[in-house]
């Protein structure tokens, strides 16, 4: 299936999910589904650099938060519609991804990973010390009272995040199957050999960090409207960092399906656990699953399926 038909299918699926949500009509359903859809975007974004290219980003929370805080700044300085804030947030984080890549991608993958963590913490510290956005105390964002075409603002946010999820997944699939994606896979498999096969590794890695950063930023851009109160602790929450790694890893890092499955499963699981047990236990669960999968099933759920399928066709 070509990229455009797939995009159509993704959008149609998103519309179907939206319709189902509206039919249920429960605010909590919008709330929970928004979070899962947000994780689809984050996990998919992470995987472009992580699973496709082989470079681990520990600082997803930083990109997410900057997307959110860009919206905060825009909200406080001009009155832009959310739909415009989203791409602007993405552009800012895309640029950060590019700069970070430029500074650190010449180093080994290990140092890149540590540098991503460093970046997240540096960004966190900058935001804490920036009084314009409320510093450590945070900022309040008043949602518009009503919005055209939608019954409530929550419903509107739900629709937007579903749209972003569809776009993110379609983009990831398009990259995966393109010449760019093949080059990224070569880099992941063996960077030196890729370079010796003519792959411009630095350039492609920069594309990956920029695109990944962009998508993580757009996941964060609607966040202030979602929570109404943004503070650094919430925006830079470690849960985003861990989930954006755990979800692709558990789902399967080699294709666009993995992050989707991982986000759906783990996201739903966490929503359930947070409500029934506690939010700390749910985080513990994510950590344990991450370690279990990386030790026992490194190719994720998708990998397990493939193994089972191979066994069936061989046996």
């Amino acid at each position, binding site marked *: 299936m070509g990229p455009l038909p797939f995009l159509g299918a993704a959008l149609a699926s998103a519309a179907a999910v939206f319709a189902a949500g509206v039919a249920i009509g429960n605010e909590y359903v919008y709330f929970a589904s928004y979070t899962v859809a947000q994780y689809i975007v984050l996990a998919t974004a992470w995987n472009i650099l*992580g699973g496709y290219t*082989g470079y*681990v980003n*520990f600082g997803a929370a930083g990109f997410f938060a900057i997307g959110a805080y860009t919206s905060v700044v825009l909200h406080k300085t001009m009155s832009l519609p959310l739909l415009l804030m989203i791409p602007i947030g993405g552009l800012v984080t895309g640029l950060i991804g590019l700069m970070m890549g430029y*500074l*650190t991608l010449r*180093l080994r*993958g*290990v*140092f890149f*990973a*540590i*540098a991503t*963590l*460093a*970046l997240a*913490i*540096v960004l*966190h*510290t*900058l935001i*804490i*010390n920036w009084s314009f956005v409320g510093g*450590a105390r945070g900022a309040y964002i008043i949602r518009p009272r009503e919005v055209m075409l939608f019954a409530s603002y929550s419903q509107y946010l739900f629709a937007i995040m579903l749209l972003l999820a569809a776009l993110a997944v379609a983009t990831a699939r398009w990259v995966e199957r393109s010449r760019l994606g093949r080059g990224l896979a070569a880099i992941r498999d063996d960077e030196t050999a890729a370079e010796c096969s003519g792959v411009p590794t630095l350039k492609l890695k920069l594309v990956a960090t920029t695109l990944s950063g962009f998508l993580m930023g757009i996941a964060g851009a609607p966040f202030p409207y979602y929570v109404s109160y943004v503070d650094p602790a919430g925006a830079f929450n*470690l849960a985003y960092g*861990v989930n954006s*790694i*755990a979800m692709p*890893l558990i789902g399967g890092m080699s294709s666009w399906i993995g992050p989707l499955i991982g986000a759906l499963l783990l996201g739903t699981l966490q929503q359930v656990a947070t409500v029934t047990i506690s939010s*700390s*236990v749910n*985080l*513990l669960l*994510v*950590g*344990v699953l*991450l*370690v279990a999968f*990386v*030790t026992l099933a*490194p190719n994720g759920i998708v990998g397990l399926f493939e193994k089972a399928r191979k066994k069936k066709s061989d046996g």
Partner: protein
Amino acid sequence: MDLTLSLLINAIVAGILLGGFYAAVSIGISISFGMLDIVNIAHPAFIILGSFVAYTVNLHLGIDPILVNFILSPAFFLLGIAMYRWYYVAFERRGRESLSGLAFFFGILFIGEVALLLIFGADYRTVHAPYIGPTLEWGAINLPLRLFVPFLVSVGVVIAVQLYLTRTFTGRGILAVSQNPVALQLMGANPQRIKAVAFGLSIATAAVAGAFLIIIQPVEPSIGREYIGRVFAVCVLGGMGSIPGTLLAAIILGVAESFTATFYGPSWAPAVSFGLLLLTLAVRPAGLLGR
């Protein structure tokens, strides 16, 4: 004496004292990452674990925290060996260290923090020891004992580790493995056993340093994250596996942080270590005393 000059001198002194402590906290990473190429970013989790163990025993039995962790260090050492075995079987042996190994340790770090949060809650914990509180005064220089005592013990630990690595048979084996594992195998030694010992040592030093930490400041589960930047900054700046380099780099970091905290405010301190790390990686990745 002029207030600013006095402030400056004390900032530097505090920085040096803190730096000694940072060295003790970081030698584990100099061993596991600098020498053995194992990216144990969960290292801070073991430091905080050490802090909470010291806290618990100190709370219930009243024993000095530093003493507690030294006594318990064999247990931490064994924990380190167990972790290395797990890492080796699941990752090193299959050649998957890079991405999967990183994700693994990140998961461990995360589990560590959340588990401690569940057990102890998010409140800051402190210990009780006679040297937390008094300050030695030497002219214009203040030497808070809660910094000075850990500093002395830390330097002792660093020296002990360096002596171990350079003077004992196993220690030299560790240095040999870090430089040329194949040659070691050809000589009949088992690199895996030596690496296990080294990793055990790295975790033991982390946990022991955790006792120093909770003397210097109150501890809660999430402060481990600040230490990721610190230990890797020190390790890289120090030249990846050079123990003297680690000490030097740690003192530089300590002074830089102390400066920043004194003159710009403590909320900027976490950024110093990471900033220093990024700077070192960008400008001189081989560090100060690098191989």
